[in-house]
């Protein structure tokens, strides 16, 4: 329950942090009053709207999420559901982590190697068992990226270590 409430505080927390940042920046920086009014007004509005939301979350009166969460209609017991939830959240964490690593190393590694590794690891992570299928999907996807996006549409993605060869 505590973890659930803490997770519900993430988005309002981001909103509060950002509003405070914008307010402080406007009023401690050297800004004209016209821009201060607009940004200050919007930031205060967001803060005011966050207050009842945060209070409702802390009191446990927050409305249920509309997404419905995990579909557990075919999973009978609580333990299995918990295991599935942990597994799925770890997958999300790993996919996001890998994407972040890809973004961080994109210019060094290049699009071809970066996307290939990302696809292979993600497909394996998502339990695609057949290696030939992993190879085929990766090959087709990377070919689309290279021939359609890079060659045809002219999106200049960094080639990284393969600079000069692509």
């Amino acid at each position, binding site marked *: 329950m505590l973890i659930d409430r803490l997770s519900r505080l993430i988005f309002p927390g981001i909103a509060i942090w950002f509003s405070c940042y914008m307010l402080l920046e406007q009023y401690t920086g050297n800004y004209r009053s*016209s821009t201060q009014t607009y940004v200050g007004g919007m930031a205060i509005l967001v803060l005011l709207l966050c207050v009842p939301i945060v209070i409702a979350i802390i009191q446990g009166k927050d409305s249920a999420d509309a997404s419905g969460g995990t579909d557990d209609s075919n999973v009978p017991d609580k333990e299995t559901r918990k295991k599935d939830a942990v597994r799925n959240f770890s997958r999300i964490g790993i996919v996001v982590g890998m994407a972040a690593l890809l973004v961080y190393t994109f210019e060094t590694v290049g699009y071809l190697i970066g996307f290939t590794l990302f696809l292979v690891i993600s497909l394996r992570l998502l339990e695609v068992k057949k290696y030939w299928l992993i190879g085929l999907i990766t090959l087709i996807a990377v070919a689309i990226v290279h021939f359609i996006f890079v060659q045809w*549409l002219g999106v200049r993605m960094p080639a990284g270590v393969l600079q000069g060869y692509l």
Partner: protein
Amino acid sequence: MSGVQDGFMLLLSVMWVVPLGLLVGMFVGALPGLNSSGMLAVMLPLLILMPPEIGLIFTVSLYAGGEVGNSFPAVMLNIPGNASSAVTAIEGYPMTLRGEGAKALGICIMASTLGAVIGGLAAITAAPVLANFALRFSSVEIAIVIVFGLVAIAQVATGSLLKGIMAGALGLLVAAIGTDPIWGQFRGTFDSVYLYDGMPVIPVLIGLLGFSELLKIIENGAEKPKAQTLTSIGLQGIVSGFKSVLRKPLDWIPASATGLIVGIIPGAGSSVASFIAYQQSMAMAGEDDRKAFGNGSEKGLIAADTANNSMVGGSLVPLLTLGIPGSSSMAVMLVVMGYHNLQIGPLLFQNHPELAYAVLLSQFVASIFMLVIGTCLAWFAYRLASVPVNTFLPVVAVFCLIGGFAQNQYVFDMGIMLIFGVIGFVMKKNGYSVIALLLGVILGSLFEGHVNRAIMMGQGSFEIFFTRPLALLLWGLLFITLLGPYLVRWLRRSKQFQRSSVQGL
């Protein structure tokens, strides 16, 4: 009339885009997991790199095709492509179980076609009239219309009204990042040179609509869909479905009107349109017909699928005339238009009438092709729902990353896409409206510009927002939208209370 003629000639020159868009839309729509806005968000890098007329017509065709494609797995395998085809599954799948799967598909295709025709007709008649009216709007009215749009979205979208308004306001604040429009000072840039031009909209859009959806699918367990049995489809069955729809005008005409009206309301989307039309159809049905609802009712299926596609036409109206997207998919179109520096709002009909009419006319062309392509695809497209979701999710993730990179070709923007993807996922999990945040970001700079201009018009005073007659009318509409549902609820409760007091006596 010359605008219509020019639009028609422009459409003729790029006619190939319509069937291609429908085909791709139907294929992708048939795949489980990705909804229309997610599909458009992922395809955004392709759409913006095309010439504007091709990109915009392709977007509308993709959208329309996606709404039809969603129906195939819903009917045949009880796997809705997205929320809007949930009703299609409720009524279509029982028809499949009793051996009328082909007929159900035929109903979906014909109902969608008729919905597209009516949506197109209404859009082409209403849009220029509304655009002319909107030309009278000054910065004051436009600023209020933007607020109205955000409030309307917060009202109808997922989660509570307060959360929706907060998300919209946050979006407007995020849009303030960049350069102050009057004095040119940087603000909220976190000292990053990449944010001097403001928050890049395309990575935000792809993150909030595309990448977050992907994370939601992984959260729900990206496994093989629970397919039932695969049945064969015959042309005779499909044609009998066509005839069934044509014999029931009292079902598809009101549903078209519903879809149209819902489409005009910003943020409502196809799921709202299909559910409202379905409920209306149930309410208007006779005693015997009502029993069939939930067990394979043709009337329910017709209503839902007609509304889905007429909504596409409806959602084009506020986009092309006021610059307010009627749905998250139309938000993608707004971004495409902005990328090509097209005048968004009523001036589009003045400065680029051929483009505006080409987009509106493309729906008629799409409806003709829909019948043919839908019939051909129906034979096998529903089998796409059996494609394991885990095989294409990483590919979609790669396209999202490319989409984030493509606009400015900065790796930084890929990071923005990722951040907003995670934020969008957290928002969806906790009942916040992603579309409200997105529209706040898209319309924020426009809103600030109009507010500043309005204040200059009022010589530094905010009074101008409350003295112009059009502005007062818009405030009135805004308050009705905001308070209307609460008023209706209060009236119902007081009637119930009165009834129970009378019964008690």
